[in-house]
């Protein structure tokens, strides 16, 4: 996470101002008891001092959720989740949970070491030091916020945005992913705790990459995160989510929702590196990541690209999608999904072509090792009105060992005869020849695998912002450790 490295460096450089602004919400307390009913939702909403409309919105979602069934079409298997046995609201923990790095799982520390994460950040990540303890004297967030304000860019927690920009939130929340879109999104709509809100005004090119890491209390966005990004006409923003360092969480179930809206000539680039704890070799204790991410290219010539590197979680269920409404709008999906040991990933995208001359590109690289299962599931739909729509899809799978699986499930639906949809798929293995060739030049088995896999993923990796790419490359090597030899 070079972004954080930068952040810490700047903390050291900048002096002065106490940390006052930023994104810390002023809730100071307790948690809701286990279980989920309307009282829980009222409790969450009250704690956040939400307006009535939002409470109603949550309750409506909850009532719909009660009528829905958990989906089972994905190629993933897990024991049933008891939704009454979960906590839905916990106050941000202000105190570190551990006293020193000595109390942290040595395996986790070894991984931080390999990723080259500075000691100070290791302490934050491992929960030895509360984030605000480090950022106490100086606030990088404040510095950044000033710069953003100068350009009129809004980047805040969604809870704050509800109060500060009620019109924008009300207009766009749920406008891309309706509350009842699917089981997990519906649950999120009812109980979401926090997340980010971004608004880029007309004609503004956001002067920096936005990273959730600038948000000081990011560690507590919780299991039901909600993100909303709106790029007004002619605006541009690049948003980075996640972190290469392995993240642990007591909450097993994560069901986030991300909504993107791009108006005329706007562009949103959304990059994710997901490295949630995958569990032990048997997947025990790993995170279930059920995410709904969708972008609407509402305006003409608008563009949304999703780039993701998925290496973590026991189960990943995720389909970042684009709705190409505006004529000449463009959707892109670049994905690397790595599964090792007992991990399961069912991921892909949906490109919905509604406007004329809309174009989409899908590049998916799935890597499986161990006993892992990796499925690409993609839908390309071309509506009646989408004259001249184009899609190009390329799905490549790489297998390491012979106990893992890779599956490609493309769905194509075209209602317009002028549309052109192309699909290419390959499956390959890391060959013994390649490993020997690399090792005969001095690379260790692990470095050789890392190099070969990074080569395989290159078309996707080059879409990542520089600061993410270097660490994501290392991460790929690390996620596959022990998969060969």
């Amino acid at each position: 996470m070079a972004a954080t490295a930068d952040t810490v460096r700047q903390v050291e450089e900048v002096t002065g101002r106490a940390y006052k602004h930023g994104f810390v919400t002023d809730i100071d307390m307790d948690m809701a008891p286990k279980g989920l009913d309307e009282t829980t939702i009222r409790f969450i909403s009250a704690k956040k001092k939400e307006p009535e409309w939002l409470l109603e919105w949550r309750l409506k979602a909850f009532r719909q959720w009660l009528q829905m069934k958990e989906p089972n079409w994905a190629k993933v298997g897990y024991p049933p989740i008891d939704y009454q046995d979960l906590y839905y609201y916990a106050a941000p923990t202000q105190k570190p949970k551990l006293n020193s790095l000595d109390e942290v799982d040595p395996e986790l520390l070894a991984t931080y070491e390999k990723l080259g994460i500075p000691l100070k950040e290791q302490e934050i990540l491992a929960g030895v030091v509360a984030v605000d303890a480090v950022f106490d004297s100086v606030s990088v967030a404040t510095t950044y916020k000033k710069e953003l304000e100068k350009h009129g860019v809004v980047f805040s927690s969604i809870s704050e945005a509800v109060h500060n920009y009620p019109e924008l939130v009300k207009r766009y929340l749920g406008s891309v992913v309706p509350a009842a879109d699917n089981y997990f999104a519906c649950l999120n709509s009812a109980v979401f705790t926090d997340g980010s809100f971004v608004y880029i005004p007309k004609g503004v090119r956001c002067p920096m990459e936005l990273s959730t890491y600038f948000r000081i209390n990011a560690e507590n966005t919780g299991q039901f995160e909600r993100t909303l990004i709106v790029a007004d006409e002619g605006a541009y923003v690049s948003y980075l989510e996640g972190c290469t360092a392995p993240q642990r969480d007591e909450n097993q179930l994560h069901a986030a929702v991300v909504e993107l809206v791009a108006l005329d000539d706007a562009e949103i680039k959304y990059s994710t590196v997901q490295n949630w704890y995958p569990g032990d070799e048997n997947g025990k204790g790993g995170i279930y990541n059920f995410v709904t991410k969708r972008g609407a290219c509402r305006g003409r010539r608008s563009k949304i690209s999703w780039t993701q590197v998925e290496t973590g979680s026991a189960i990943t269920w995720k389909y970042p999608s684009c709705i190409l409404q505006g004529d000449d709008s463009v959707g892109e999906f670049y994905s690397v999904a790595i599964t090792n040991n007992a991990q399961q990933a069912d991921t892909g995208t949906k490109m919905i072509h509604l406007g004329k001359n809309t174009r989409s590109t899908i590049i998916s690289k799935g890597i499986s090792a161990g006993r892992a299962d990796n499925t690409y599931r993609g839908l390309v739909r071309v509506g009646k009105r989408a004259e001249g729509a184009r899609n190009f899809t390329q799905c490549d799978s790489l297998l390491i060992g012979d106990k893992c699986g890779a599956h490609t499930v493309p769905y194509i639906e075209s209602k317009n005869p002028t549309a052109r949809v192309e699909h290419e798929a390959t499956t390959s293995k890391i060959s013994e020849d390649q490993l020997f060739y690399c090792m005969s030049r001095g690379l260790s088995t692990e470095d050789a695998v890392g190099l070969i896999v990074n080569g395989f993923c290159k078309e996707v990796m080059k879409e990542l912002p520089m600061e993410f790419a270097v660490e994501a490359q290392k991460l790929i090597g690390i996620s596959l450790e022990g998969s060969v030899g």
Partner: protein
Amino acid sequence: MALLEIKNLHATVDGKPILKGIDLSVEAGQVHAIMGPNGSGKSTLSYVLAGREGYEVTEGSVRLDGRDLLEMETDERAVAGVFLAMQYPVELPGVTGMTFLREAVNARRKAAGEDEIDAMGFLKMVRAKAKTLGVTDDMLKRAVNVGFSGGEKKRNEILQMAVLEPKFCILDETDSGLDIDALKVVSEGVNALRSAGRSMLVITHYQRLLSHIEPDVIHVLANGRIQKTGGKELALELEKNGYADFAEAAA
């Protein structure tokens, strides 16, 4: 003491004996050639020295600078100074030549406890060496060996050798697939790397290469054994008579 000392080396592939007692010692600074008919075990010997999986040593010893080579993993041997320019270089899709070289150099530096190499200085050094071997910038930016012609692949192997500066170089049929001009460039590259501290084992089927890279000693390998050892004149003799004598001797 010789730089490389092979004693009574026996090796099998898939349980089949291929090397049947090889004795060979190469002094520092010397270039030895190994000639022999197809299937005589030349590539097998090169793989055994480099430590390829599946090539099982059943008897004998190999020492580099007095260290037991057979105890080491493939990558450890490379770091210790063994380099194999392969008969069939392997494609690495998506891995650029420059990245591959940098990773290889950094692997050595890591083993020596040094920091990673300075990227800019490295780039300059590689470009300079590439130029003398006719390896273009474009080739360095392309994925290793992907879509390379036979000649480009071989030049690329020698470039790796030039950059990694190994102690002991094995060149397996580096001349195959090269036209006369390419052969010249490659041979000049190899000759430029000859030095007092570096030894080479040049494997070839034909005498042609040896008029460009003049060896100090020539061995004839047939049926898994060194059948004859001599000077330059041996190559000419083989050119005239072929390997028939040895094939018979072996049978």
